């Protein structure tokens, strides 16, 4: 008996349910918590594919660091139902339109994808392990890797510059 399909369905239902709850929750703090739950479900999917590094890093970076900052901001802003700004009806319409466009693009991109030859290996393969991943990143993909790290550096410098500006403004 193989339990992998059951785990897959469980994780999929979990991820979709959490994602739906994240979007539909009234309380923004609940939204953040549901999003964290979604990240955990996705990490479970990574583990099913034996991409252990991706799974753990997803939890450390997204669930453990980025969402903490989200939660910080939302908790301090103290958003309540009473203070929730009234949303413009046109804004909602435009949002739905934009979401529909994204769906269209995704469907169009995936329509011709060959599912049979691209099927993922479940619980097998070593591509997700840190040794293989590191070698690939630093040999074959070293240039894109370095470029993306430059991108991060520029974002960091930008954040530092914006933060500094605030301080000098207050002092003057």
């Amino acid at each position, binding site marked *: 008996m193989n339990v992998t399909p059951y785990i897959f369905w469980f994780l999929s239902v979990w991820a979709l349910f959490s994602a739906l709850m994240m979007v539909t929750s009234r309380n923004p703090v609940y939204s953040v918590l549901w999003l964290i739950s979604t990240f955990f479900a996705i990490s479970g999917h990574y583990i099913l594919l034996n991409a252990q590094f991706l799974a753990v*890093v997803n939890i450390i970076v997204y669930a453990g660091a980025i969402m903490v900052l989200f939660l910080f901001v939302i*908790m301090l802003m103290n958003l309540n139902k009473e203070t929730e700004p009234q949303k413009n009806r046109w804004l909602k319409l435009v949002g739905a339109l934009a979401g529909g466009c994204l769906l269209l693009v995704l469907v169009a991109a995936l329509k011709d994808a060959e599912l049979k030859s691209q099927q993922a290996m479940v619980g097998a393969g070593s591509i997700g392990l840190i040794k293989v991943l590191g070698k690939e990143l630093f040999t074959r993909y070293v240039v894109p890797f370095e470029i993306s790290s430059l991108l991060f550096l520029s974002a960091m410098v930008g954040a530092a510059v914006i933060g500094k500006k605030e301080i000098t403004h207050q002092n003057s």
Partner: protein
Amino acid sequence: MNMLAIDIWFIIEKVALIATIIGLSFFIAMYTTYAERKVAAWLQDRRGPNRAGPFGLFQPLADGGKLFFKEEIIPLTSNRFLFILGPALAMITALITSTVIPWGASYVDGTTNIALQVADVDMGILVVFGIVSVGVYGIMIGGWSSNNKFSLMAAIRGASQMVSYELPMGLALIAVLLMTGSLKMSAIVSHQIEHGWHIFYQPLGFIIFFVCALAECNRTPFDLPEAENELNFGYHQEYSSMKLGFYLFAEYINMFISSAVMATLYFGGYDIPFVNESTWGLSPLLFSAMSFAVLMAKVLFFLFVFIWIRWTIPRFRYDQLMNLGWKKLIPLALVNMLLTAALTLWLNN
């Protein structure tokens, strides 16, 4: 690799191991509270708890009983579900971390090979980091859902402190991983058994790691989230009964686990120093038991150091804490990492 096929003996073995480790965590955490008060008394020239049982040994049981029977109060303005979720999360994250720690040498007898480790995953130490980084939510959710400004301030302090100190901790860890070349906890221990303990190669890395571990466990001198003279009581101010007990207990379990992690990463895990115990020809059971006892001795020593520091060093100010983390520990850890990387490259060529 069909790791998901069900093997009933495998599951029984692991469940027994998990139950033992959780029971052990609770037991050690219980008696760490006793040790905390005894050591505090010793350092302050007092007697400490000495009424319940011989030498006050039943004091933790009395405390636990008291917490269980206290009135359970959930503030009306609080967010009920999250209020209960907070301490539960704190406890769960504290307990899960023990899964990847090797608690002793494997029991090898003929064909049976029982590893004293719940899961020896390829990611090893990164799993610990992942769970520790999630551990912030217990504090944040508890503090926010109490609907109390002091609790919220404490929760924000705790979270920012933990996020800040994870960085130098990770950087100090990278130096260790550069030496071992593997993230597996078992590989880290066996590397130390062969080449000597990491503390001799990574003294600076260990100091950084230790300081960060103090901050991650919210221990003095970094117990800003529980600074009672600034925040009344801290993030668990509105909690009573066993929910408060869970928060306090989770802190002691975190101390226990981080002591075990430090012993594993820098002090050779279950290795006995200066001798090669595998040549003594001990029976497999005795061998495993002895390695476990050695690890426990190291863990108890670290627990003592945690307590010792608490009753010796006064609390930092909040800006001092942030300065230490971001302006001193991170550059130090980066230099340590670069030096280790350069030396490893040089020696390996």
